[in-house]
């Protein structure tokens, strides 16, 4: 009997554990967001989170977008040449960046940079009893630590995506003009003519969702951190992995939602 059920148990246990984890994550998110509607609001912490998450992520998001835009132009040119469609390079680069690569790569870079630092910071606060200390000083840790980060990331990442889109398109343009013999003005005109409002807006909405996911994973795993340096290390790793996977899953779901008709 046990020989028969053992494989089932081996499958069932991680499934149940994953469902339980999702449940806790959702409850955590709801609790975090609920503090938005209950004063006080910690403006200073919010400002600092905006600076940390938004401004300081600009270089890494910008560089990622620049090189991706350039590579994309080369690839589409090579692919398009097979059926004499090299002229689509400007519009495909723009659409590809705005709809997909800008938000996804931007989100993943922010996950690597921000989810880890949030988890490490909050995890360290947890294991050194700073979270307990906050509570005894009549300050709710969810309100003081989690909400400002959730909000800041949700607002900052779309802006990062917008900047990334522009830099990525610029990267494609530079490669197109310097390496692929496109006319500079025609390239720009094609980019602008074929890009629709929804291409950009959908990417920014994705960015907002990814930002929320990044801060959520960072705060959640930080707050859950086990005792000791190992606990913080594990929390950091889990936060980055969970944020990345959730970003990719959410990206698929949002793409279905936005573009399948």
């Amino acid at each position: 009997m046990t020989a028969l059920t053992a494989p089932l148990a081996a499958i069932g246990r991680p499934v149940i554990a994953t469902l339980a984890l999702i449940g806790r994550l959702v409850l955590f998110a709801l609790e975090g967001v609920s503090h938005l509607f209950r004063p006080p609001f910690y403006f200073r912490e919010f400002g600092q989170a905006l600076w940390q998450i938004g401004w300081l992520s600009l270089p890494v998001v910008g560089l990622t977008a620049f090189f991706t835009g350039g590579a994309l132009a080369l690839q589409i040119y090579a692919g398009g040449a097979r059926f004499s469609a090299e002229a689509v390079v400007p519009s495909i680069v723009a659409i590809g960046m705005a709809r997909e690569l800008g938000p996804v790569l931007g989100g993943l870079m922010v996950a690597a940079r921000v989810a880890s630092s949030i988890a490490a910071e909050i995890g360290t606060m947890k294991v050194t009893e700073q979270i307990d200390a906050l509570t005894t000083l009549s300050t709710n840790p969810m309100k003081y630590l989690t909400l400002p980060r959730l909000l800041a990331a949700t607002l900052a990442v779309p802006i990062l995506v917008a900047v990334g889109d522009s830099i990525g398109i610029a990267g494609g343009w530079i490669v197109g003009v310097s390496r692929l013999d496109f006319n500079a003005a025609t390239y720009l005109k094609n980019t602008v003519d074929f890009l629709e409002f929804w291409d950009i807006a959908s990417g920014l909405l994705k960015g907002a969702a990814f930002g929320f996911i990044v801060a959520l994973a960072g705060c959640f795993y930080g707050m859950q951190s086990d005792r000791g340096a190992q606990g913080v290390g594990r929390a950091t790793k889990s936060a980055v992995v969970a944020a990345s996977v959730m970003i990719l899953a959410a990206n698929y779901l949002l793409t279905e939602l936005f573009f399948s008709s």
Partner: protein
Amino acid sequence: MITLENIHKSFGAQHVLRGVTLEVPKGTSMVVIGGSGTGKSVLLKCILGLVSPDSGTIRVAGEDVTRSDRDAFLARFGMLFQGGALFDSLPVWQNVAFRLMRGSLKRPKAEAREIAVAKLRRVGLGPDVADKLPAELSGGMQKRVGLARAIAAEPEIIFFDEPTTGLDPIMAGVINDLIREIVTEMGATAVTITHDMSSVRAIADNVAMLHDGVIKWTGPVEKMDDSGDAYVDQFIHGRADGPIAAIR
């Protein structure tokens, strides 16, 4: 003032508190002694609601702590954590004045800073440390900043988890006097955990000894030396042989 009745708490298979019953009268100073790892810190955290007991009731001023309004409840408390638990992103004075800069006790920044500097002086720290970050201080200095933070808002009930460990004998004396003063002059109720027997004698009105998850003995500090309890005797004299095993 604070009454604990039959408190139990386990972490996994480890049964740390096994029916703690204790009473701390208002305006008195209780010192909890007991071996390392017996659950003294856990006991304080249970009262504050940072750790929820598996069973038993805790009352503060007759009110069950699980039913009272959390914010109002915590506003009456000050706590010095064993490890200091200073916020390392904030300068020292903002740590001390944390409660005075937000929430119901909020006051202007300059005033909060003034109070912080005054409290730092009371724990033997000069105004020059006010603008440093906690990481720039020594362990003993961090402990004292934690102490200043605990007393900053002049709470009615104060918990000190090992206030004098890591301090030199003179500074330990200063801190002992300070705790005594807070109880006698401000009328606060204090619960202190310490391993330092000279501290016990300086601070305590009453002493309780925690061992094997229960309060083995409790009574006025004057009775501690002739308690007739073999556990207390071994502990206060620091003897290696006796009913308390050296390996725990």
